[in-house]
């Protein structure tokens, strides 16, 4: 079976208060599909972190979540500043977030590490000045 279902979201880069909406919607949809609670949590955490990243660093972007029979693919695409040093960005606690963002309780430097931790596979394509695309996969089969 090669059926799949895609949920598309535009992530608004100007509004902190609405960050997390895409992740909440995905959670609801995955629950309706009958996926296991653990999987739903993995996807929604990865989504949430990605969403927040797009809002604080890239001025928003797009998120596509596709459910395949054996895996869930999350694609987060933005046209932000790009990531200069991926290895550095992947370190826990490293963040380029501004003081304003930090004062709002974000920018703890756990975004990318959490995304990697809660997914089975993660690929980052980034170009400084052009933007970043992150693909993450959560496997549905053991």
């Amino acid at each position: 079976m090669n059926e799949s279902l895609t949920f598309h979201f535009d992530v608004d880069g100007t509004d902190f208060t609405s960050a997390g909406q895409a992740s909440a919607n995905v959670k609801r949809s995955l629950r309706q599909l009958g996926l296991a609670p653990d999987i739903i949590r993995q996807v929604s955490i990865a989504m949430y972190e990605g969403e927040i990243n797009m809002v604080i660093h890239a001025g928003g972007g797009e998120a596509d979540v596709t459910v395949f029979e054996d895996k869930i693919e999350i694609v987060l695409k933005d046209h932000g500043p790009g990531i200069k040093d991926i290895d550095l960005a992947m370190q826990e606690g490293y963040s380029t977030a501004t003081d304003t963002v930090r004062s709002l309780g974000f920018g703890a430097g756990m975004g990318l590490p959490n995304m990697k931790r809660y997914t089975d596979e993660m690929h980052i394509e980034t170009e400084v000045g052009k933007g970043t695309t992150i693909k993450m996969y959560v496997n549905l089969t053991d």
Partner: protein
Amino acid sequence: MIHYKHSVELDVEKCTGCTACMRHCPTEAIRIKDGHAHIDTDRCIDCGECIRVCQSKAKKAMCSKFEHYQHYKWKIALPPPSLFGQFDGLDDVNYVIQGLKDIGFDDIFEVAKAAELVSAYTRLYLKIPGIKKPVISSACPVIARLISLRFPYLKDNIMPLLPPMEIAAILAKEKAKKEHPELKDEEIGTFFISPCAAKVSYIRNGYGDYKSNVDVVVSLSEIYFLLVGAMKKDKQPEIMTESGKVGIGWATSGGESSALLNDSYLAADGIENCIKILDQIENGNIPQLEFVELNACIGGCVGGVMTIENPFIAKTRLQTVRRYMPVSLNHLPADEKFIPEGYFLNTSPSYIPISRLSNNMGESMRMMAQIENIKKELPGIDCAACGSPTCRAFAEDLVRGKIPSDSKCVVLAQKNSEEENGNDSK
């Protein structure tokens, strides 16, 4: 699926089909069909929001009437602390306790007393290594049911300790048997005076494998009216209360948490706020916390649908009641380092995936694609005139086959007929 016994009841005669309850239901458990509301019992969490918003008083919580249970030889009242917030000018809970005796109860066991014990046990529980944090209070049955339906991942965060009402019932029965060994088990009746519909359901259904020790649930409003007639203010009552500030504090949001003597807690009230907090805990984007207290009703138990007074007024009155009370009258002996086995909940309700479209993933995906397609055509104003609470719910109901396949969106039908009429006149 085990049938869950609810306590929210609809009077079809009174219901006007106005959609208020449906639009306010936090779990989308209500639909309007044939001119009146229908409650989906699988989804209902007994939060009582529908009772609160119903203008026609068509919804009510089912309770037993006190007069129908006079056959118990030894009737024990279990008054919750929220009861003490209902009376104007009350400064001494003993008036209420005496009043309960005067209306026919043989003994009184305050739920606030059991609450003080639960607070002490919770402090012990939080020290157990390896438990899942934040620990979520087990006191509000709406939250416990909501978690079993919607937040299965947080199931193990719920404190596996009986709520104060249950511990009060157990201790009240032990006390009765000790003081009156001639009484047979079936002659002793514990009567919980409930501020809310959810506690009624909890008592009728139990929790996981646990069967409630409360025998009869009467509504706080029924007892209130009996008490108002019976309470005598002219005579100073005997001192009978066995609880302090901590126990009474459980009646309002934040009271349970503040008794933990630990500032790493969060207390939220109101069902929508509680759902948001649970979502955030599940996503991990909440500060590290030891304890989370969630009350489905605004203000906490004083906001229950069977209370008389506005929750904020009740809270203010409780301040007066608590003023001269000791902090707590129920402490664990210094050497008591364990929570009694009988106070633990060994099982929790199993996860019921109510929102799942189908048992087959492929089928679910097809259904969801259909829902998305239908939704695109709908106006998206969530007017609820079709009998489903939102446009999305309407699409879902269609795909799930819950409404006839020829069901129409009222707004679209209106628009179509306007367009047709417009074309005719040209």
